[in-house]
């Protein structure tokens, strides 16, 4: 057999195992993280964004479909569940701070929650988005499984909502620090809450990398914002829809 045919045979074999999908995910993320660190931890060089770009390029170049890739990537994806549970640990470490400013925290999250949904719908509406798109936009700051559930309940398109949720998360993780610096908010609790409400888990992951207090508050904000949006949004749509 020629070397090319050998390679072809090896590729056919590898394509049926989860090994490649899992390995390229880890490699792409570490490449992204390396660029991020090399680039002086510039938020624009977000490792998730870079890894996704690398992988999308790779899948397109090799003609691999997402289902095949996900065979391997699912092992990484699965860990999101236990990692979400693990957020209880940094949160517990902030118990004292939580007790001290519980009212402020709840107020900030509720206002942020309503702002997220209302401003997205208002801007989309003003620029002529369709009703289905508006309903899909409304829950975009909430963690994916809650957002897709809300979208379906409201009559939006859950798959479009999933895209908007991820885009929002990356946007918040990439741009959040600039906005917070620009308005002069230095309190790590406030910074964490803002990123957690606006950009759910992707924002929380970013906040955890920067500061433990911010990470704990972001995780809390993600959870409470999900709960608040799931309860409030159907009522708001009923009132104004």
């Amino acid at each position, binding site marked *: 057999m020629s070397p090319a045919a050998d390679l072809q045979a090896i590729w056919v074999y590898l394509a049926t195992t989860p090994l490649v999908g899992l390995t390229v995910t880890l490699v792409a993320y570490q490449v992204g993280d390396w660029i991020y660190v090399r680039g002086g931890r510039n938020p624009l060089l977000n490792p998730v964004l870079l890894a996704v770009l690398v992988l999308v390029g790779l899948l397109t170049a090799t003609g691999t479909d997402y289902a095949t890739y996900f065979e391997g990537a699912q092992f990484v994806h699965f860990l999101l569940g236990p990692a979400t549970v693990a957020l*209880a640990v940094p949160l517990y470490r902030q118990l004292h701070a939580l007790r001290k400013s519980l009212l402020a925290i709840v107020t900030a999250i509720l206002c942020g929650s309503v702002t997220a949904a209302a401003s997205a719908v208002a801007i989309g509406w003003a620029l002529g988005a369709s009703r289905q798109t508006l309903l899909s936009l409304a829950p975009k700051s909430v963690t994916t499984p809650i957002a897709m559930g809300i979208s379906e309940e409201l009559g939006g398109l859950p798959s479009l909502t999933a895209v908007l949720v991820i885009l929002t998360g990356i946007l918040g993780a990439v741009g959040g620090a600039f906005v917070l610096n620009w308005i002069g908010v230095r309190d790590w609790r406030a910074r964490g809450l803002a990123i957690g409400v606006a950009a759910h888990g992707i924002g929380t992951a970013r906040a955890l990398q920067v500061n433990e207090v911010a990470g704990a508050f972001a995780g809390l904000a993600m959870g409470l914002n999900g709960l608040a949006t799931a309860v409030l949004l159907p009522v708001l749509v009923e009132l104004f829809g």
Partner: protein
Amino acid sequence: MLGYITLLLLCQLAGEVAVRLIGLPVPGPVLGMMLLFAGLVWKGAVPEGLDGAAQGLLRHLSLLFVPAGVGVSLHLPLVAQEWLPISAALVGSTLATIVVTAWIMQRLAK
């Protein structure tokens, strides 16, 4: 360590079961986080092994979003048709949410 990884999975499992039984509007893992948090408050301390397991998972939390992020690329054509209102809404709303939440928290928190 293994015991605490099992504990994390048990909390998630309990969360998934409870969410479906009661019909709560939150995902199982989020309820699992609340359960573990309640447990820690009750116990009054974080066991060392749990701390290690949690830190191990959370240190690379960003990585765990990569597969879902790649999945988005499949559905980007959904956005293409109304890309202008959608991108304006995403940018404007993310900005407004960050500003409102951070300002209120900074003003109210002592």
